């Protein structure tokens, strides 16, 4: 009954304030040999302005592909995507991505890596530099400005990549498993920091993850995808008050949401206890 409520709410969702609108999106990859992969099939999704939406799903179900289509760095096969009411034909303005890998440039130190988009946009360096320092401090890397990327730990590198996305002050932040390669402790820490940042700035966030509990912890809504073809099976609203503490993960609402998603995975043949 509670589950029915959760899904019912998610449908009414956030009409009217759409930041990202996706309707009947299809995306095929064609290999040189002519084999066609249906990476995405008939995706409908609306993301409200200031909303935090996560996407979970098995590996290869098209999560990264969906993100690349929204970002305008992959062509779509069918359907349409609007950002700010405008169809996406190239990377939209006011959008930034945190990629699955941190991809820092080895020939630039920490601060210059963060400044890269500023240089591309030819914005004045002075104020941006001050903002870059603030962001570093905010994310716990004060004093790391002139370190080289290879001198950083995996978690520190990913923080720098997050700063590089945030310096553009994007209204829309797309994050592709940004914490996938981190240990559980660092991940918890960055989850808290991300929530704090989001509460301060209220950016629209699309957050891709493998972790069900991370998705539930961070999100207003969790989109569950299935593979072959890549499609959305369900969208679940997370009704937990903010700011959420790590202890929120022990609450019944949290447990109901995660087990609901887990059962959807089981329905796809994943996470079954095979003993």
């Amino acid at each position: 009954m509670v589950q029915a409520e959760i899904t019912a709410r998610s449908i009414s969702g956030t009409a009217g304030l759409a930041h990202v609108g996706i309707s009947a999106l299809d995306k095929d990859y064609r290999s040189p040999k002519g084999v066609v992969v249906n990476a995405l099939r008939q995706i409908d999704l609306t993301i409200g302005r200031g909303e935090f939406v996560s996407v979970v799903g098995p590996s290869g179900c098209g999560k990264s592909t969906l993100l690349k289509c929204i970002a305008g760095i992959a062509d779509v096969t069918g359907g349409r995507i609007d950002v700010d009411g405008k169809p996406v034909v190239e990377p939209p303005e006011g959008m930034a991505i945190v990629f699955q890998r941190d991809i820092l440039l080895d020939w630039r130190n920490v601060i210059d890596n963060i400044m890269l988009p500023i240089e591309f946009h030819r914005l004045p360096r002075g104020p941006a530099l001050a903002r870059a320092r603030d962001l570093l401090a905010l994310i716990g890397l004060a004093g790391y400005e002139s370190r080289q990327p290879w001198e950083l730990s995996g978690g520190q590198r990913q923080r720098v990549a997050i700063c590089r996305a945030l310096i553009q002050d994007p209204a829309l932040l797309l994050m592709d498993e940004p914490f996938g390669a981190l240990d559980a402790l660092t991940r918890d820490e960055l989850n808290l920091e991300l929530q704090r940042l989001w509460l301060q700035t209220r950016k629209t966030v699309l957050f891709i993850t493998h972790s069900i509990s991370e998705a539930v912890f961070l999100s207003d809504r969790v989109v569950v995808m299935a593979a072959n073809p890549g499609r959305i099976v369900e969208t679940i609203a997370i009704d937990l008050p903010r700011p959420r503490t790590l202890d929120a993960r022990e609450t019944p609402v949290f447990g109901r949401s995660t087990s609901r998603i887990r059962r959807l995975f089981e329905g796809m043949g994943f996470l079954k206890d095979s003993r």
Partner: protein
Amino acid sequence: MSHTRTVVLVLVGFFVFWEVAVWATSAPSFILPAPSAVALEIASDPVWYARHAAYTVGACLLGFFFALVLGVLAAIGIVYSRVLESTLYTLLVSLNSIPKIALAPLFIIWMGTNLSSKVAISMLIALFSIVIDTVLGLRSVDPDVLDMTKSMRARPLQVLWKIRFPSALPAMFAGMKVAISLALVGAIAGEFVASQVGLGYVILTAQGMFQIPRVFAAIVLLGILGTILFYLVGIAERILVPWHVSQRGGNVGAVHGA
């Protein structure tokens, strides 16, 4: 730098072995002069040797410089243009396997016996490795990095200058290290064919008059100059590409040991 010390030790060892071998076998100096005899030969007229060496090195450096400029420009064209890739690059790659030294006499006919023909031969021989390695480097950019720059709405020239060029530098230096040695080969080849000056000319004329110590003096000078030129490229690499894995100091670990 323990590597430099190893190189110096090996070289000193080589010359000592050469010296001892010549004394032990009492080889006549018109077959194999001892290093001390070669050194005396150079010391007998250092200014004369310096003049010839300067000519050869000048031809080599000019050839290398033009090969670098033309090669990098060609590589950028090849990477950005389908047409250039399927014409120029295909041509360069298939011509690369022919021995370009064989073309040296042609250049003398076309351009005369002056410096310009040596520079041209030197450039031609050095050009290939620079073009091929620069193309390789410009292309080997991480596709994720290109996605990132696209998402930041970077302009093509910004991507070339801020992304492709720096990530190509390690490969470019690999090409330049080969090219600088080849440029020297080209300069000498040109002098062998026709010249009145240069270490190649010294070798050729001394050989004709059986002045074997002089031949060896020129060869030893060429060896020293080639080594210095190669190290200069290495120093430039260390200055311009300090971030590359092969250049990082600190805890890189033992490659040969353990």
